[in-house]
């Protein structure tokens, strides 16, 4: 385009397609770089362009997934409704009890062990039995509906786009299998 006129960009970014393609064809991290040894491969601290910030040492992040369904949040018996939004929040490493109240008034507890430097995703309520406390859960690299919190590794290997791409792949595979 000429630099002397405003013109709408005809195409958007190639990044979503690129990430989706990589997510469908295999793991992006083929091998750990030995130079990264000891730096913490799950370190989220390098992620921020805004601040370079990350949870402080000894902190982990918690993301409430499916937040739009909830109307109340307590952490260790303290009301923390202000945290009930899209962004993750930090908690000290260790065991916490998170009680989430759904829009219909029912509530459930999640006993969560937060690990320093790891984002734990509290899964959608459909994945959890309501009205009672499920067994203690640990952040681990697995899918949401296994009934546990997931680590940052799973929150989307490369972010939410990769998660979406994987979901699309599953749907496509099911259609193909039919």
């Amino acid at each position, binding site marked *: 385009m000429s630099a002397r006129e405003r013109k709408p960009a005809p195409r958007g970014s190639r990044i979503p397609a690129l990430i989706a393609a990589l997510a469908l064809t295999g793991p992006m*991290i083929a091998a750990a770089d030995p130079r990264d040894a000891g730096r913490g491969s799950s370190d989220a601290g390098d992620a921020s362009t805004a601040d370079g910030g990350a949870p402080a040492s000894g902190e982990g992040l918690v993301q409430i997934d499916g937040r739009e369904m909830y109307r109340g949040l307590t952490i260790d018996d303290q009301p923390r409704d202000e945290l009930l939004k899209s962004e993750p929040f930090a908690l000290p490493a260790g065991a916490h009890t998170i009680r989430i109240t759904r829009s219909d008034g029912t509530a459930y507890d999640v006993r969560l062990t937060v690990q320093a430097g790891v*984002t734990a995703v509290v899964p959608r309520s459909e994945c959890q039995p309501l009205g009672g406390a499920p067994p203690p859960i640990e952040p681990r690299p697995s899918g949401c509906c296994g009934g546990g919190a997931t680590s940052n590794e799973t929150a989307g290997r490369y972010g939410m786009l990769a998660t979406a791409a994987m979901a699309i792949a599953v749907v496509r595979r099911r259609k193909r299998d039919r």
Partner: protein
Amino acid sequence: MRPFHLSLVLTHACNLACTYCCMGEHHARAMPLAMAERALDLAADHATTATGGMLDVGFFGGEPLLAWGTLVAIAKRARAKPGLLTRLQVTTNGTLIDDERARVLADLGVRTTISIDGTAESHDRARPNAKGRSSHAAVLRGVESLAHAGLLEDLLLVVSRANVRTLRSDIAYLRGLRPRAIHVNVAYESAFTDDELVAWEAELRGVAEDFVTSYGTEGAPRFPLFETKIAAIVNGGLTGDDGCSVGRSNVAVAPSGRLFPCDRLVGEDGPREAPRVIGHLDEGIAPTRSLARGTSAPECATCEERTRCGSHCACANAAETGATNMPGPVQCWHEQVVAALADDVAEALLNGKNVRFSQWLRGTHIVGAREETKRRLPQVPS
């Protein structure tokens, strides 16, 4: 929730004579300490009720370190206020920083952004001192002092006609100073020629190549020019501090007491800037007038880059077109060039299976939150 951002223009005076300065002619007016204290107190009260105590205080000028006493007094006052989550930051030309001042800034937790436009040759073409002589060596001394104090964080390079043809080597030079991040702003006020734009794009392409090559290596600084564009795609748009909060959660106080939506719009604080005034400190800290913001250009409505375009920046818009809500053609061109290069960067790093990039990309969807989360840490029950 965004923090409330208070920018204090401590003085209009400056010891440099940058060719592209957005503050116009430098006059001697400085902000009285009592006014700065009042502005801080009002902002703190406002932040307590409106933003959960999250308050950013920026020191701007002129050269804010010419008002060193006021800066230190306000920083101490801010730190002494209970219940606030305060971030302090100063944008400076660096020439007045010595070891002692660097230590004071570090002790007070004042983040620094030093303006430096690259190598001595490039820098001095655009940023001579007030006598027209080189300022580069003095800036480097300030950089060194900050590095000794562990406070060398952000370097800011302004693209102007003086360095548009040497951008690649200038940014490589700054990378060698090993800051935390290198920021790039454009002096859209400059009357870039067509030839310069061609050269500029070629230089940016080289910058992108260097960024890919150095990504993840020890000490490689963050480079938001590309990273912000990539993160915006993952986030579905610009988030957090990447977006412009001008005139909403962002208020700049001029030494006259007049309120502006952003420090870069204060200018000379004279009759020409009067239409941009959004209030006066005597009326409180909240804006009493709104400002046209965003983009009203019809082309932007159908642009595929609109979710990550810098046209939200009222100051950039005003610099080129005079209107805070109308981006100019050079900005439009630059945004699209940078976006395309950011895609190239992402593609190269993804295809190259760059481990550090994959780690960074994996975390970008919470980038805006992390900033806020960090501020909230003292409120988290232990």
